């Protein structure tokens, strides 16, 4: 692999993230401060924090931050906040009701971000299985919801979703 590709990786041990007074994220690397537009995970579903792309205001990649676990605690917090923003995916804890009318499935759920009702069309396509027990559901508007481990849901909820997983 070529050298120029190599330079793109940021070593977490020599990197930190902070917010400036107006709340913007600033990347400190190589002794230089750079304004950060967004932080996006390369593997948002499988390894959300392992390799994240730090971008400037124009969406151009500044670098890829590796092994974010080794960041200092403050940077880690900023990173988590940014990741939660760039990839918002509430976790479903309980399912109250599932209704299907004319190929639209309406879910009434409890998530870790509060109660929510959403519609899913085309279940085959929009309920995606990741691994054995995890599911990611995309609703008609493009919102994402996650079921971490469907076997951990209450028995009634498990019964409700059986036909849709």
């Amino acid at each position, binding site marked *: *692999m*070529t050298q120029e*590709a*190599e330079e*793109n*990786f940021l070593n977490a041990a020599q990197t930190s993230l902070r917010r400036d007074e107006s709340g913007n994220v600033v990347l400190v690397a190589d002794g230089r401060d750079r304004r950060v537009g967004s932080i*996006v*995970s*390369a*593997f*948002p*579903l*499988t*390894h959300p924090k*392992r*390799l994240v*792309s730090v971008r400037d205001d124009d*969406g151009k*990649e500044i670098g*890829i931050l*590796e092994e974010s676990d080794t960041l200092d605690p403050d940077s880690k917090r900023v990173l988590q906040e940014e990741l939660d923003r760039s*990839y918002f995916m509430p976790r479903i804890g309980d399912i109250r009701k599932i209704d299907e009318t004319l190929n639209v499935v309406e879910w009434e759920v409890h998530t870790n971000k509060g109660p929510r009702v959403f519609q899913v069309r085309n279940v*085959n*396509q929009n309920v*995606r299985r990741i691994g054995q027990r995890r599911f990611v559901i995309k609703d008609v508007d*493009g919102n994402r919801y996650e079921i971490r481990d469907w076997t951990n849901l209450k028995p009634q909820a498990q019964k409700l979703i059986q036909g849709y997983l």
Partner: protein
Amino acid sequence: MLAGGDRIEAIVDSDLLFVGRYGHNRLVLCAQKILVVEDGVILRNVRMSDIASAHCKDFVGNGVLELRLNDGRRVELIRYSKTMSEKFGEIADRVNKSLAVSEEELEAREDEISKVSRPKEDKSTYRCPNCGHPLANASDVCPKCTSKRQVMMRLMSLMSGHWRLAVVGLVLSIVLTAVNLAPGLLVRELVDKALRPMGANGQEAAALAAGAPQDVQSRPLMDQQEFRSRQQYLYVLVGIFMALVLARTVLGHFRIRIMGALGEKLVVELRSKLYRTLQRLSLSYYDREHTGRIMARVLTDTRVVQGFVVQAVQQMIIDILTVIGIAAILFSINWRLAAVALFPIPAVVLIMRYFSRRFQGVFRAVRRKYATLSASVSETISGMRVVKSFAQEEREIDGFNAKNVDCYNAHITAVQARSKFGPMVGLIMSLGVLAVWLIGGRQVLESSTGALTGERILTLGTLLLFLTYMNNFYAPVQQLMNLTEVFQQSATAAERIFNVMDTPVEVGDHDGSTELADVSGRVEIQNVSFAYNHGERILKNINIDIQPGEMIGLVGQTGSGKSTLVSLVCRFYDPTKGRVCLDNTDLTDIKTKSLRSRIGMVLQDSFLFAGTIRENIAYSRPGATEREIIRAAQAANAHDFIMNLPDGYDSEVGERGVMLSGGEKQRISIARAILKDPAILILDEATSAVDTATEAMIQDAMDRLVRGRTTIAIAHRLSTLRNADRLIVLDQGEIIEQGTHDELMQRDGVYAKLCKIQAKFATAIVD
């Protein structure tokens, strides 16, 4: 006599005369000469010593066997229709062999001849090598000459792994049949012993007839004791019946479970065996077979076979047992009445025979019409753009409606046939029942008046037993009649499956195959010729020596043999002649898996599997880390667009996932190749069908990929090959020019011409 003391080696009759009428000319191949005879007249007589070589010239619908003589003359020996071309091809081979004509000579002549005759069309019919029965596909099983029994035996042998289940299922079936037949016997007991009205007994009835009515009325019909014993017997019968019903329920439950499990196990096994075979088979198999047909083997045929093994065989056993059981019971109780009851059977069998033959034709027509209908729908839908752009909607609707009506008519014919068959069989079967009513009824009456005595007495219970069994008799007979068709279908399905499994792997490893150690990447193509399935030669005596790390550009028109050459380097096929070597080892001596692990390919149609982008990039190296995947994607200029997808590298692609453009797919497949880090790289039209900006990006990625690897690149756009160390121009399977870009431009040959044309186009577009 004709041979004149010469040894006759072969005699073949043609089916076409020189004048072009059908008729027979006879070719007699002797050790010293070849004769052609028509009606006892010798048309040709050529001494072997005069012959240089023999060739078949193919034309449309017919062909000619031609001899080249030593003095340069040509002799047309015999003319034949396409049906015979294989036979005369063999004759030509034999002649050439006995003359010891060298292969080079033959090839040279054949190429010359192929320019004269019409290009060979694809062979549309194949014939069974045993019986000559025409087959639709080369891989088809000849239905005429394979033994159905053998196939069935092989099919049954698949069950050997589950013989316990099969035996249990069979035993259950037998017991169930017995349980199902028992209630009929109970009916007789019930009527004759428990419920028999007083007076139905012979003597009492006779007394009645003699005239003592007042007597009967004055005393009770049955005394207390008799009543009680009969009541008890009734309870016993009810109990037995209940037990039978319960037994049937439980046994039935287990039978369905066991047979279902057996069937599923069988079909899963069969499917997995089949799939394994498919993965192992050489690419040449996939050139011959349509995807749809292969799919049908794996999905439909295995289902059919499962249905047969589980249901048809079981049903057949139960039906046969039932029919035999009922007939045995009826005949043992009263053979006279049994004969009456079953007399319509021969007629029913005949009618069923007649109709099943008619049905086959009718239903085949229905299927065909339906297939035409569905084909027309799928065709117009995929061509909707064209339909609309030419405003031909009305015409398409009319066309569809015509086919729709065809389909309707075929169905109506089928319905009409069925509407005659069912009622007719019903009528004839009712005749049996009617006869039992009439004759049996009279016998019951006569028995009660004492007209019938001893063995010939027929009780009411026995009559009811007959009527009960007759109701149960015809259904199994009918099912057995239908079974032949099911049998036929599943035997064919099974044969097709076995046929796939038996397909030899053409490109495989042998005992001496070696693993590759470090590969420097020198590829030598030595005297290589190649023809697909014994057709025309695609490559003719190619010699190329590619140094480690060298980049070769293959240039040439469509059909010039570029892709075929590359396929030989990957060893998707083995050359017909000559050899391909990697680091001085013949590819045929290298384990295919080991060889392919060193070769990376980027093809014109980048194929992505259903799955995430990460999985698709890592397809070439499943153990790759996330970091390696990202680095490969960066090198392929794919990283940025991947990161702009909502799910990044976890985005799903393929039918269920995000839609990627051709250029994006292309870059993912480049990343895949980069990740594999192969010693040899094949680029097959990798930058075609993308816009210029994308091409620049792909080109940039490609340059990085090519560095340090032996590369063979095919491109229509010659600009893509600007980095090639050497360009090789192919035309009709031969190398006509080679050298660097500058050298070839200086030569002002084919390559220079192509370059100028493309440059003109390019400036035209820029202008």
